């Protein structure tokens, strides 16, 4: 057992820290910094961040150099993710392009697709959104009804997708569409790349309970894309979409740990400032117990991260462990948000302004975490996956 990265990686970490310090405004990462307040400001920042990463050679760290990547390993990606989380670096607007579409193309795409799409993706010149979920196809994604028909040399796409983050900024959408209605539900789906800037595409914002509107509903009403914009084979899109590039998730875990620990530090500071039953909350044994229980859970996420990194050195991808990690961090983060609000006590309702504690960071965790147990597979689905695929319990044929 040896819990350390190699020297090469640690050098990369140093360079990354220097880079982050150099490009981020002074005071960034502290609770006093004036962070973007509106969705528009956040998006502008996200766009700037995409370009900045590209300019400084931090886009596509583990991707091949011939498509614009940096040709490093996912270890560097892990470190980069951790360092970004540590300083609360901005979130780019092309996360789905980089996290899902790019890796999918690298494995399943044609040479021409890779050359066409990956360089502008990494450069932040083309933003991607994801067209998977539909109003009636959430957890049961395979029952999607958006359809694509071949008309001449084009695909014509019709249907509604929802929960498409950043669709209003996107240039392209990767879409799962039904191309053979007579096939069983997991067959007959095709993975298509569809340009967003055309008449047949309508984007409407979906406001979230946080009050922000990062999600959208996207309606394809006879939207068109060229015949060659199919990834993989026609009718084989379900498999393509499930080409589990879950080592991406592995690299995210370490970043998540850093993010959660940053939130925990803010919470501990709040607990020192706020009253408990006698003395500060930080002196109150009830809150001390709960804080340390959650602090432990966050640290355990770090250990899970080490485990993932260790596994990925021999296996090239994660299997159903990804479900375990997703269930772990999403449920934990939800509990963290609730604990944070309990520590805030009577200050809890004041998410902004005069009485706000921790510059709203804790409130964002509280509200935002409610999404984490729902999207990308609800906790209920993750538990099914674990029970059936990891523990071998008998499958229920209904899902």
């Amino acid at each position, binding site marked *: 057992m040896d819990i350390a990265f190699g020297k090469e990686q640690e050098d990369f970490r140093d360079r990354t820290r220097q880079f982050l310090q150099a490009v981020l405004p002074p005071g960034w990462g502290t609770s006093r910094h004036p962070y973007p307040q509106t969705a528009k400001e956040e998006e502008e920042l996200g766009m700037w961040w995409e370009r900045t990463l590209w300019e400084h050679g931090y886009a596509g760290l583990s991707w091949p150099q011939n498509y614009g990547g940096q040709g490093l390993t996912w270890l560097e990606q892990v470190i980069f993710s951790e360092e970004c989380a540590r300083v609360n670096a901005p979130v780019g607007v092309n996360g789905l392009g980089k996290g899902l579409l790019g890796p999918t193309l690298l494995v399943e795409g044609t040479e021409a697709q890779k050359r066409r799409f990956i360089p502008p993706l990494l450069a932040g010149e083309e933003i991607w959104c994801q067209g998977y979920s539909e109003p009636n196809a959430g957890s049961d994604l395979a029952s999607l009804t958006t359809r694509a028909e071949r008309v001449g040399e084009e695909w014509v796409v019709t249907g509604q997708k929802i929960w498409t983050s950043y669709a209003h900024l996107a240039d392209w959408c990767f879409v799962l569409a039904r191309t053979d209605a007579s096939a069983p539900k997991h067959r007959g789906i095709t993975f298509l790349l569809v340009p967003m800037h055309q008449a047949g595409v309508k984007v409407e914002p979906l406001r979230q*309970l946080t009050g922000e509107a990062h999600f959208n509903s996207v309606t394809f009403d006879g939207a068109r894309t060229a015949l060659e914009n199919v990834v993989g084979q026609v009718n084989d899109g379900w498999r393509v979409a499930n080409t589990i590039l879950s080592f991406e998730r592995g690299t995210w875990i370490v970043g998540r740990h850093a993010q959660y620990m940053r939130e925990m530090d803010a919470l501990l500071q709040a607990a020192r400032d706020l009253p408990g039953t006698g003395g500060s909350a930080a002196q109150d044994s009830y809150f001390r117990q709960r804080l340390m229980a959650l602090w432990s859970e966050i640290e355990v996420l770090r250990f899970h991260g080490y485990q993932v990194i260790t596994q990925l050195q021999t296996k090239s991808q994660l299997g159903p462990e990804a479900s375990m990690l997703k269930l772990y961090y999403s449920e934990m983060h939800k509990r963290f948000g609730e604990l944070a609000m309990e520590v805030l006590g009577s200050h*809890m309702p004041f998410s902004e302004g*005069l*009485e706000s504690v921790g510059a709203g960071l804790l409130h964002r965790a509280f509200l935002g975490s409610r999404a984490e147990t729902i999207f990308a597979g609800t906790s209920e689905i993750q538990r099914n996956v674990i029970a059936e695929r990891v523990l071998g319990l008998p499958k229920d044929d209904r899902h």
Partner: protein
Amino acid sequence: MEFDYTKEQYLMQGSVSRFFQEVAGPAAARGCYAEGAQFAHSIAPRLAAQGVLGAAATPELGGSQLTFLDFALIFEAAGQMLLPYPLMENYVATDLLMRFGSEEQKAWYLPRLAGGEILASVAWGSPARPWSGEGVQALLSEGSLRLHGRRTFIPFATVADVLVVPIQSKSIAGTLVGLVDAHQPGVEVMPLKSLDGSYPLDLVELRDVELKPEAQIWPGEPVWDWACQVGRTALALEALGAAERIFAQTLDYVKVREQFGYPVGRFQAVKHAAADDYLLLESARVASRYAAWCVSEDRPEAGLYSALAKAYASDMARRVTGDAIQLHGGTGFTWDGDAHLYFKRAWRIASQLGTAPEMRELMAQLVIDGRTA
């Protein structure tokens, strides 16, 4: 042995519920999120016309002399419909005047509170410690009391006309409760950005505000303790109402929402979450009913059981409304879904007038340490 509301009380709830569905409900709550506290003004006349304002007052004073038990189901209905009006504060102010006010105070305030002409709020919070009476000091200056300090957590303070404020006075060595005119010079209301936009909470700073003798209620301590007990029980009932309403909507949703070829409500994970939530709901129902009885009957254990009901119901409501988001899936996370309105209300209620841990600490002092209430 009759541990239930009367048929008349249920009938009244039914009619008020239908009325609340018109003036309040999720759409109105969203309206209040957008417009702010001003929204309360727009519905005040209709609330008055329906007779839900000033309810504790005698008929001569514009009320209908309802006991807390009579009104308990109305609080529940207000919770169900996310009423964007400080109804609990109106009830507390009214009943407080009936019990502790002078004849002059009753005669002036009660008809106006019952008629919705003035909006009353209660300055529940102290910046230092929640719901304690600290924060505002009265100084005796040239024979008149002058108030200094701040209180927070005051519902709808930006549109309130009168504020019920606990006041400490070192110079006279006592506590009183003041009926502070919110439009007086020196009263500065600072709106806070509050999570539950359908029930805004504000901060009020008092700078050398005169409090005339006719606005004073002495001694203040029993009055304030009583107000806290009534307030907590009403909040427990509101939390119950909020939770049961969104729970019912959630049940409706999981019965029709299909995934994997079946209504999701057929999956055991959903069933068991619903069963657990139901158990919590029904338990909060009997807990708040018992507290309502204690408060209504002026039982000595009202302090203990109003704390129990507040803690239990707010724990329950946070869990049930949170589960409602989860069981609604993606829809639960949208602004246009109702779940988050109830969720935020449940959390706001939980933070008000003492959190669940604070309530349990209060109980522990009585039960474990054997202090007397």
